[in-house]
């Protein structure tokens, strides 16, 4: 079981790094992140200078609130856009080329197939996120920001990304058309992201439900340096839910095939 999971996991990773997909995706991701980091940082410098000149001592800004938190919300939007492009081929491509049919006749459980593919995409995300650690490291060279909010923010991004990836894995298992899989993933991920915005407009019960199911609301505390079990469980449950749907979709694709 483990060795078969490993074989699929390594095959997927190899695919990303054999083709230029991984490099192009990671490169574009880093360029966009770099752009945001420098513009946020310049704006932060500008604001701090103003504060010093006006010698308004009540104003209290720091690198976490001024740079890292805006950075985290930017990264979450960028991964929302980029991750569907990573997951859209996971199963769709194999369905299209017929290799999936052969894979399903090997003595490998559906769970091992899905887990192998999902964790390969999660590894790409982890690589992308760890490259952006360069930005907080740069801050550490010039100043000394608090470490906990940085680390918890990254944990939050990884969990949030995992839920996007599981949504992507699910849609990739539904169709042999990569574009359809990618666009649906983006749509549904965006839905979970913005669902909280509707909260203030509704009654109290619905409002709580909407807020609690929002991907963004649960990210709030992570970016403040608070690691809450409730938020962690939210992301894990959301991911598991979509991976479970993927499993069901594989089972039913055997019936329909």
């Amino acid at each position, binding site marked *: 079981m483990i*060795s*078969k999971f*490993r*074989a*699929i996991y390594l*095959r997927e990773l*190899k*695919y990303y790094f*054999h*083709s230029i997909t991984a490099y192009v995706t990671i490169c574009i991701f880093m360029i966009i992140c770099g752009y945001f980091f420098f513009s946020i940082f310049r704006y932060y410098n500008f604001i701090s200078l103003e504060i010093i000149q006006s010698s308004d001592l009540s104003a209290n800004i720091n690198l976490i609130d001024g740079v890292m938190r805006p950075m985290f919300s930017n990264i979450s939007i960028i991964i929302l856009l980029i991750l569907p492009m990573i997951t859209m081929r996971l199963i769709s491509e194999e369905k299209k*080329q*017929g*290799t*999936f*049919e*052969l*894979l*399903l*006749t*090997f*003595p*490998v*459980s559906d769970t091992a197939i899905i887990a192998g593919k999902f964790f390969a995409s999660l590894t790409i995300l982890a690589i992308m996120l760890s490259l952006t650690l360069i930005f907080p490291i740069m801050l550490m060279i010039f100043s000394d920001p608090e470490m906990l909010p940085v680390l918890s923010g990254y944990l939050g991004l990884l969990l949030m990304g995992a839920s996007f990836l599981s949504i992507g894995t699910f849609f990739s298992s539904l169709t042999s058309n990569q574009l359809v899989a990618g666009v649906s993933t983006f749509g549904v991920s965006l839905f979970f992201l913005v669902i909280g915005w509707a909260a203030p407009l509704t009654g109290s019960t619905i409002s709580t439900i909407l807020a609690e199911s929002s991907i963004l609301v649960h990210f709030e505390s992570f970016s403040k340096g608070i690691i809450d079990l409730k938020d962690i469980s939210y992301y894990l449950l959301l991911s598991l839910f979509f991976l479970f749907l993927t499993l069901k979709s594989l089972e039913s694709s*055997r*019936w329909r*095939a």
Partner: protein
Amino acid sequence: MIKVENLTKYYGYNKAVSNLSFEVEKGEILGFLGPNGAGKTTTMKMLTCFMPPSSGRASIFGFDIQKDSMEVRRRIGYLPEKTPLYHDLKVKEYLELVARLKGVANTSIRSSIERSVESCGLEQVAGKIIGTLSKGYQQRVGIAQAVINDPELLILDEPTLGLDPRQIIDIRHLINNLGRERTVILSSHILPEVSQVCHRVIIINKGILVAVDSPENLRERLKKSSIIRVKVRASGDPGRISEIISSLEGVLMTKIQHADEETVSLIVESVPVKEMRDTIASVLVKNNIGLLEIYGEELSLEDIFIKLVTKEPA
């Protein structure tokens, strides 16, 4: 041993395979014959545990395809119709991946790859990227992945489809070799291939089993009449020769096909059960007619196939 009982598959309301029952003995090479849409691929997909049957059951080496699907999958090698391969991998990398997925023990992975590379004649391309290989070699890679776990049963869906005549001959040899120590089920459109390679043939049409038998028996069973071609030295009236042969018991009809100064050619149709050639020969000799040629014309498997699947008024 493989046992199929009343296997049925519906795609929506469309019945693709209908109450199929047959058995395959260990070590046998079984041919699956049928026109497009007959349900060959569908049957194979069920036997390889890709999809469950709508009803009916099948067991492979005593393991039920639905209840013990993992046990079945461990014991088979499957080459699907369109030879799906990972085109970005090298042949050896691909075979290693399949070996791991099929659960070949870590210690014997090297030797399994070597054995299947060798038995499929892939030595020269083992280090090449699959996407760059010719169709014939890709087909061999497809067969190599099927045999990597040294399966007791090989299921090959149209293994020679889309190959040139030379490659077809090569693949046929390969199947013959692989079939020496294994049970093989293969489907095909190329009928002479089935009669060359297979011990037994199953003919299906529109999901229904039409006939199961050895190629030779099928040929015998289907001969409604035998045709004998006779060529003799011309001696007087060709019509007299025709009359002599027609008067023999068992001859249904005699037709003069060609007659000139030197020779007369005739087509003789007789009842299938009797061997007529020696009787015809002796009656000609008795009448002092020089016999030049005589031979029985066999029904090709192609004819049988067409006769079986096109319902003609019996």
